[in-house]
Structure formats: structure tokens, C-alpha cells
């Protein structure tokens, strides 16, 4: 879940970057384009309209000199024709209006481009007016010019009532403007694409260190404390990577220190056990002598001698357990596998400790359950579980052994040991396999070393099996050990050299 959220967050950064880049580019391109377009359009149109108006005025002035007021309809028509003809390109359409009369250079020209407003405005003004109109989708420039006639009697020109209108198609101008819009459009799309690409690149630049950081964090969480990042550049992300590396280094150092301390503690325990072993060997050798002679001593000395003998045996067992534990810790414990009959092995374990009468067994018939296990370690497992049940639970103790085929894992054996005691308190259950864990907090010494269940756990683990404790619904504590019966693939027995013949076909 965290992974999905993290990924979507990273994707979010990428999307946001791309959107921002695209938006900025679009705004920049479009506003630049719009401004350019407006300026260019104004420039193009102004130029052409100025030229047209100047030309128109010149031509009208030239033509008007040939006419005298008042004008007859024929003269008006001739005037309009003359003005139109004076333009060499012959693209002008001219309308002349005089006191309610009007004449067009093209016969029956409706002159739709000319609005009434324009007519009125020209009639009341003394200078040229223009208007850009679009009729039937065709852009055109309409220019209106009131014609003043020079009167010899007056210095000022007066309204003659004659107006001339000109319509010029502006297709060429429109075309240049369209080309301009097209150019802006054509520039915008590549710019946007470029912006998105740049955004992706930038996102990658940002996200790559972020992703590296994420992977490194995960790697640390998985226990690879030597994970470090390559610091590139000197930006904030590089700073972050640097900080990460320092943190990881500090963490690694602390963990290493903890491990060193633990190793030292364990080695100390191993060394102490080892050193205790030699004096214990001497003491153990003579406990039998003490036991034999105690009967002939005075009562106090006899008690003292028996105490020494008993405690020596316990001490020897404790040191033996400690040594065993140290070997597990050091990873020096190995399996010595043999093909055994499990029921026979369990029965033998109970028999050697004189438990056959106290433990109710439910074992498979001889030969029914065979497996490749370490017989000594199996003995330790069974003996510790039964001893624990007898010591901390209450009789009767039940032991059940059976085999089953675990899908995909071959045959497994199950050993269940159930006592009839009060069971294990729920808060103690998780701690029951801990070393030196005692159920009563007073830490009174019991017969066992306090390592029995811990050693059982290690022995089961060495066999790649499982052990767990629970409270039986019917009362009492139930310990269940499950062991795989074919250890061959896991730990080949060196004594079984493949060169040896005599295998069953």
C-alpha cells in the first residue's frame, strides 16, 4: 500500500511538472502570438488603407477639376467612371452621390458594403472616412470622401454635396493576416511539445534522485545497512542524499556496535562455559565417589557431600546447555543425520529417563514412521518437551507422534506433548521459548537449566522444522513440534559418499 501511494505521489510530481510547463508555454506562445498578430495586422491594414486613401484622394482631385457644379446624372456617372478608371489595376468600385443622385462605376452595383451610417458620416464630415467590412465572407475596405469644390468667390471650401465612395477588396491583406495566424499556430504546437519534453526531462532529473532515495530507504529497511547514494551536483536533492548517507552510516555504525556487543557477550558466555568445563570435568569424575561414601559419613558431612554431588551434576548440565547454546549462536551446530525409526527413538528417549510409566504415548507401529534426522537432537527435543511438561505442567502427560504428507514438502512428523497443568498464561506464551525464562517472577531455581525450551527451539530450527506452544482447549499446555523427515536435500550426510555401492534398486 505504501508503495502504491508512493508511486502515485511520484507520478503526481511528474504530471504537475508537465502541466505547469505546458501551461506556461501555451500562455507565452499564445500571448506572444496574439501581440505579434495584433501589431502585424494593424501594420498591414494601416499601410494598405493609408495608401488607398491617399491614392483615392489624388485621383478624385484630379478628376474633379474637369467638372463644374451642378452635376447632371450623366455627368455624375461619368465622374464615377473616371475615378474608377484612374486606378490602373481596375480593382476599384466607385459610387458617387450628389443631392439624392448616385452613380456606380460598375453598372447596377448594389454597393452593399456601404452602410447608411457611413453615408451620413461622410455627408457631415469634411475629411475622408473609412470602414472595414466583410460582405459575403469577403473583406473589403470602404472609403468615403466628401468632394469640396473650390469656389473662386470664397476662400474656404464649402460643402458641394458630392461624395465619392470607394470599395477595395482586401483579400491580399486578409491572406497575409491568415498566414500570420497560421505561423503562430504552427509555432505553438512544437513549442508545446518541446515544453512537455523539457518538463519530462526536468521531472526525470528531480524524480531520479527521489527514486534512488526511495529505493535506498527501502533497502535500509530490508536490513542492507551498507546502502549508500551517489551524491551528484550540489542542489537540495544532493544535500538530501548526503544527509541520507550520513544517517545510514550512523545507523550502520550503531548496529555494528550492537552486534559487536552481542558477539562479545555471547563469546563471553561461551568462554566462561568453556573455562568451567575443565574443573567440572574433575568434579564430575568424583561425584560417584562422593555418593558412595556419603552413607558412611556423619549426617552433616553426608548432607554436605550429597549437596556438592547433586549441584555438581546440575552445574555440569547447565554448562553443557550453555555450550550447546553458544554453538547455536556461533552457527557451529550441525546435523548428524541418520535414518531412524521415530517411534523407536521416542520410546528410547522415554525409556532411558524412566518416563515410560508416567507419559501416555500414542506412537505409530515400529517401522511405520521412518525419517532422516539427527537422533541425538531428536532425543533432546523430545526429552526437553516432556521434562518441561512434567516440571511445569502436571501429570498425566500425553505424547502423540504421527506423520503426514505436507503438500510439496514431502513427509513430515508431528510430535505433540500435552500436560494436564493449568496451561500457560497468555502474556507468557510469546516468551516461553526465551532463554532462562521462568514463569514465576521470583526466579526460583527449578531443576532445569532454563535453557531447555530455547535449546529445543534451536534443534527444531536446525532441522528446518517448527515448534509452538498453545493452551489446549481441554486444559493444559500443548507443545507441537513439526519436523521434515527428508533432510537429504537440505544437509547431505558426508558419510554417504555417492561412490559407495549397495543401494537398493
Amino acid at each position, binding site marked *: 500500500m505504501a508503495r502504491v501511494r508512493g508511486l502515485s505521489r511520484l507520478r503526481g510530481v511528474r504530471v504537475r511538472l508537465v502541466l505547469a510547463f505546458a501551461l506556461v508555454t501555451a500562455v507565452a506562445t499564445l500571448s506572444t502570438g496574439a501581440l505579434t498578430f495584433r501589431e502585424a495586422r494593424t501594420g498591414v491594414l494601416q499601410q494598405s488603407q493609408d495608401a488607398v486613401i491617399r491614392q483615392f484622394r489624388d485621383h478624385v482631385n484630379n478628376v474633379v477639376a474637369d467638372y463644374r457644379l451642378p452635376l447632371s446624372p450623366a455627368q455624375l456617372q461619368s465622374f464615377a467612371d473616371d475615378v474608377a478608371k484612374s486606378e490602373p489595376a481596375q480593382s476599384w468600385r466607385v459610387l458617387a452621390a450628389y443631392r439624392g443622385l448616385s452613380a456606380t462605376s460598375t453598372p447596377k452595383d448594389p454597393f452593399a458594403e456601404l452602410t447608411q451610417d457611413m453615408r451620413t458620416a461622410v455627408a457631415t464630415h469634411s475629411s475622408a472616412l473609412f470602414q472595414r467590412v466583410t460582405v459575403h465572407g469577403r473583406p473589403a475596405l470602404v472609403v468615403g470622401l466628401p468632394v469640396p469644390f473650390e469656389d473662386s468667390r470664397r476662400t474656404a471650401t464649402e460643402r458641394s454635396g458630392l461624395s465619392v465612395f470607394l470599395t477595395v477588396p482586401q483579400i491580399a491583406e486578409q491572406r497575409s493576416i491568415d498566414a500570420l495566424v497560421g505561423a503562430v499556430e504552427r509555432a505553438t504546437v512544437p513549442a508545446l511539445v518541446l515544453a512537455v519534453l523539457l518538463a519530462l526531462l526536468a521531472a526525470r532529473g528531480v524524480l531520479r534522485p527521489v527514486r534512488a532515495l526511495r529505493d535506498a530507504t527501502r533497502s535500509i529497511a530490508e536490513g542492507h545497512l551498507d546502502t549508500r547514494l551517489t551524491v551528484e551536483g550540489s542542489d537540495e536533492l544532493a544535500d538530501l542524499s548526503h544527509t541520507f548517507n550520513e544517517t545510514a552510516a550512523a545507523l550502520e555504525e550503531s548496529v555494528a556496535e550492537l552486534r559487536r556487543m552481542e558477539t562479545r557477550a555471547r563469546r563471553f558466555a561461551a568462554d566462561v562455559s568453556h573455562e568451567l568445563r575443565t574443573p567440572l570435568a574433575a568434579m564430575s*569424575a568424583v561425584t*560417584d565417589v562422593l555418593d558412595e561414601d556419603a552413607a558412611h559419613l556423619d549426617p552433616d558431612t553426608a548432607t554436605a557431600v550429597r549437596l556438592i554431588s547433586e549441584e555438581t*551434576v546440575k552445574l555440569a548440565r547447565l554448562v553443557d546447555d550453555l*555450550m*550447546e547454546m553458544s554453538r547455536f549462536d556461533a552457527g557451529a551446530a550441525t546435523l548428524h543425520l541418520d535414518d531412524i525409526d521415530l517411534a523407536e527413538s521416542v520410546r528410547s528417549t522415554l525409556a532411558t529417563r524412566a518416563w515410560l510409566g508416567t507419559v501416555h504415548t500414542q506412537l505409530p507401529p515400529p517401522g511405520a514412521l521412518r525419517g532422516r534426522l539427527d537422533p541425538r537432537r531428536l532425543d533432546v527435543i523430545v526429552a526437553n518437551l516432556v521434562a518441561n511438561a512434567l516440571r511445569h505442567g502436571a501429570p498425566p502427560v500425553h505424547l502423540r507422534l504421527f506423520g503426514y504428507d505436507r503438500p510439496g514438502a514431502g513427509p513430515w512428523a508431528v510430535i505433540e506433548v500435552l500436560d494436564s497443568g493449568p496451561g500457560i498464561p497468555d502474556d507468557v506464551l510469546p516468551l516461553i521459548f526465551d532463554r532462562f525464562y521462568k514463569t514465576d517472577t521470583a526466579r526460583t531455581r527449578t531443576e532445569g537449566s532454563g535453557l531447555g525450551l530455547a535449546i529445543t527451539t534451536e534443534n527444531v530450527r536446525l532441522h528446518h522444522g517448527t515448534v509452538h506452544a498453545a493452551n489446549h482447549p481441554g486444559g493444559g499446555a500443548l507443545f507441537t513440534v513439526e519436523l521434515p523427515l527428508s533432510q537429504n536435500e537440505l544437509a547431505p550426510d558426508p558419510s554417504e559418499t555417492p561412490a559407495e555401492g549397495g543401494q*537398493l534398486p
Partner: protein
Amino acid sequence: MPCVLLIEDDRAVREGVQLALRRQGHDVVAVGTGEDGLGRLLSHGADVVVLDLMLPGMSGLEVCRRIRAGDNQVPIIMATARGDDVDIVVGLEAGADDYVVKPVQARVLEARIRALLRRVGASPDGGLPKIEIHGELAIDRAALTVSSKGVPVALAPSELRLLLTLSGSPGQVFSRQQLLEAVWEHNFHADARLVDACVKRLRTKMGESPGQPRYIHTVRGFGYRFKETAQEPAGPGRPDVSLPGRYDLPGPR
């Protein structure tokens, strides 16, 4: 009175073991170094040697090897710390007959010694013919001697007892645990490597080719059995190519 030669460097352990064994009725000679032990064995002999593997100077392993190299088949018990696994295996292969784990109680060591001494003296099956011939192997159950191709083979007590047990019921498969109980009088959960090491030594002494054992066969999943397999005469330097014999046993599970 059986004479036990105790080779142990720690004075307290030496004195303790010596005291305990002496009380059990053994004549105990205790020495502190391997060199002294070898010297004592050469000059006076012993019925059984209890050998600490961790010795200053000449190691217990070396002492063991030298005793066997001198063709002395005296029973040897090595005393070792549990978990010194390499020591046990190497010690067994060097010719030790049995081992005890330190710290050891006197009665445990005593039981081992007695079992070993019984091994030297007794024949497991009195009712069988005195001399059995298995191919080129001749086993004299009364005289407790073995010869291969007419040449006597010197066997240590455990090796002899193992061979006698296996050959006493030809064709029968013995599990390692059964052999541990029958030959070493160990309880059920002893180290099966004791058997493997002894079988290895026995095969070597009988001149078996390791790839194609002729007399003692490994039955995978069960243990060992003795059966004389017909063998083509192999020329010098020519490896034995005969296949292992057929078995009249049910297949493993």
C-alpha cells in the same frame, strides 16, 4: 585387573578420573602428555587407553594415529568436548574405538570401558561354526582373527566386533542405531558417525575398493549389511567393475 592408561593434561581431571576408576576396580596409570602415554604403552602395555584429545604438545589425535601405526590394536576411548565435531570425526578415523563427552561422570566412562573390554573378549554368536569363509575372507569366531587371502588382518576391537556382528547374520540389514547398541553398547541416540567411521576403517583394512565394497554394503535409508558379493578377479590397477548384488529386501518405504 584391567589396566587403564589415562592420558589427560589437567591435573584435577586426571586425579579425579584416576580415583573414580580405581574405585571401580581398574588399575589406572595416569600420564599428563601424549609422549609419556606412548612411552608407557610401549614399555608396559595397557588393556584400554582413555585419551584426552586436547593435549599440549603431541595432540591426542597424533597419539591415536601413532598407536595404530604401531599396529597396536589396544582399545582407545577419546574424551572430547561436545561440539568439537571435527575432533570426533578425525579421532574416530584415526582409529579411536569410542568417545565420551566431557565433563563425564565416572560411571559413564566406566561403562564405556567395560563395554570395550567385553568387545575384546567375547564372541557374539557362540553357536556358529568356528571358521567362516566369505569369498577371500576367513573369520575365526573362536580365535577372534580375520584373514583376507590368507593374510591376517589386524582389527581393533570395535572393528572386529562390528565385522562379527554384521557377518553373524549375512544379508540382514542393521541400522546404525542397532549397531551402536550391539557393538558399542551405546544407547539409541548416540552419534551414528561412530558406525560410519568404523565401517570405513574396516573396509580399508579388508582391502575393499571404496566405490565397490565387496562385503559390507551401505543400504541407503537403513544402514549396513554384510553379504559377500561375487567378484570378477580384478587385475592390478584395474578398478572393480562388478555391480552390487541383488537385494532381497523391500525397497525403502
